[in-house]
């Protein structure tokens, strides 16, 4: 199997071949012989070696869980979970389709259920990257939600005081 995987925003090609009880896995130009045991529904125990007879065999327990905020998988290896998403999945030998990431309108969504405390822009406003757009109140705190890229606010879907669910689209910003 051949996957195109985005790891913390960086794209990698991952190729998996099953060989008997183990796998041969390559990530871009590095490759391992991997033996995997499922510990529970979200946890794998991996033993990885470079394939050389005398080389070390590394043992890692890895938890893969979807993140409530983004829906993408976060993989716990060390102290910080690593965000992993599949940007394409295909059989070996096929071409990856060009990814649309980074273009198109930006949808500002509520990362959590809460109440819209303030709206800091109007429809039609030009906004800079990281400019605060909406203040959402949840868990007794006010949190600013910012534009990830510069652009023009084309739609505002909420009003102040409104209660919103996680994932609700609050505003749409078209790249300027």
């Amino acid at each position, binding site marked *: 199997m051949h996957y195109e995987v985005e790891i913390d925003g960086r794209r990698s090609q991952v190729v998996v071949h099953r060989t008997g009880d183990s796998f041969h896995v390559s990530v871009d130009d590095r490759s391992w012989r991997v033996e995997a045991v499922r510990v529970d529904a979200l*946890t794998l125990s991996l033993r990885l070696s470079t394939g050389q007879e005398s080389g070390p065999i590394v043992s890692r327990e*890895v938890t893969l869980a979807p993140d409530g905020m983004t829906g993408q998988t976060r993989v716990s290896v060390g102290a910080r979970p690593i965000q992993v998403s599949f940007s394409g999945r295909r059989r070996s030998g096929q071409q990856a389709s060009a990814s649309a990431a980074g273009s198109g309108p930006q949808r500002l969504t509520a990362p959590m259920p809460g109440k819209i405390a303030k709206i800091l822009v109007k429809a039609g406003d030009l906004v800079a990257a990281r400019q605060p757009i909406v203040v959402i109140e949840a868990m007794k705190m006010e949190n600013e939600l910012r534009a990830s890229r510069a652009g023009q606010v084309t739609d505002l879907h909420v009003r102040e005081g409104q209660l919103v669910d996680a994932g609700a689209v609050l505003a749409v910003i078209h790249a300027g």
Partner: protein
Amino acid sequence: MELSPVAVYSECDRAALHVRHADEAYLIGPSAPRESYLRIDRILEAAERSGADAVHPGYGFLAENEAFAAAVEQAGLTFIGPTSKAIALMGSKTAARAAAVRAGVPVVPGTESPLGADVPDAEIARLADTIGYPLLVKAVAGGGGKGMRTVTDRADLAGAVRAARSEAGAAFGDAAVYLERRLTRPRHVEVQLLADHHGTVLPFVERECSIQRRHQKVVEESPSLAVTPANRQAMTSAAADVARGVGYTNAGTIEFLLDEDGRFYFLEMNTRLQVEHPITEMVTGVDLVQWQIRIARGERLTLDPARLLTPVGHAIECRIYAEDPDNGFLPSPGRILALRVPAGPGIRDDSGAAAGLDVPIDYDPMLSKLIAWAESRPAAVARMRRALGEYVVGGIRTTVPFFAWLLEQPDFLAARFHTTSLDEILKSRNGRPFVEPSKDDEDVAAVAAALQAVLSPSRGGLSTADAVGAWKAQARAEGLR
């Protein structure tokens, strides 16, 4: 102690650990705190129905509410804490300051009486001039940084007072404020006390709580590296004097500010058990909650006073929150899908988290307190770093990566910090991620994600619904074991 615990809970806490581990459990209302955990009448109904003898208020919600303590007393039950009178007296920041002055304990220079909404701006400005800038505007009923403003310039005073009053009115139902000189680079050092009903007040070795984010403690340790033996003697006796002076009983904490020259000032008293009490338990071997119950039953304190002031080793606590440290500490409520908790010698996890639980948006997002004890501070730091590396919470973001970063900072390792250091550092970081995973870890993550997809061929990776289903299946399987 062979006691039978009874829990009360709100609708969203049905599956919470305190409910699951109690012998009896009573629903007291919807999720909003004012309809459940702040409803004194409903809590007392549950107490009556269960036939409970005593009520422990914990350390949130009504824990420092004198009306609650009084209602428990009037219902003929034992309140496991101080008297309603002591809570009322020490709960007013200005009355508590006066009590400290009476006990001969230094206080930070500030106004002596509450400034209600009727005090004109000109009068406040005059009082501010006598105290000097920079100063703090603080809510009389305050706590947790709410209703607090720093003012460095006379021109900003009126606005800060207005903002503090409005915040204090909303949070505590009391808009009165007072002014206090802001010390430069102070440490927050506090003294735990136990006091019985027979006149004995025993202070414990201090806790260092200077690492704060927006006036909220995030890491605590005991003992403090900034406190000399002479200072420990002076601060702990001062703390006991304040408590004795007001006839205080049960567990309480006196908070001090310690300046760069080793001078200390009474800040306030917390009339309840504190979140950070485990570090005191770890370095003294005393079970504080058990003693709260024994004192409430009328027992005499039989602890050796010298032992309580002589820490064995060093303990550190990290407060693990459902917040995304790489995104301005934005709250991260949601379902905990996976949980792996560190253990081993010297590690303690006081936790409310469990796989499958939803972290509600209605309450403070603290998941757990991770505590590390070892024979020395460097060993405790090393143990904590190991434990943080093993702490896995899937489904939501947590502050674990932030602590992994903090415990590597040279200033933390050298114990060089004061109450606003962390805010200054966070500001200068400008949102950079706290922990950059190594290339090796990223490769392992990619390998694991691909193998997860290969081993579960019907899915191209996990969706949330799949993972929740898988968790339920696992929970059922474990239930059958």
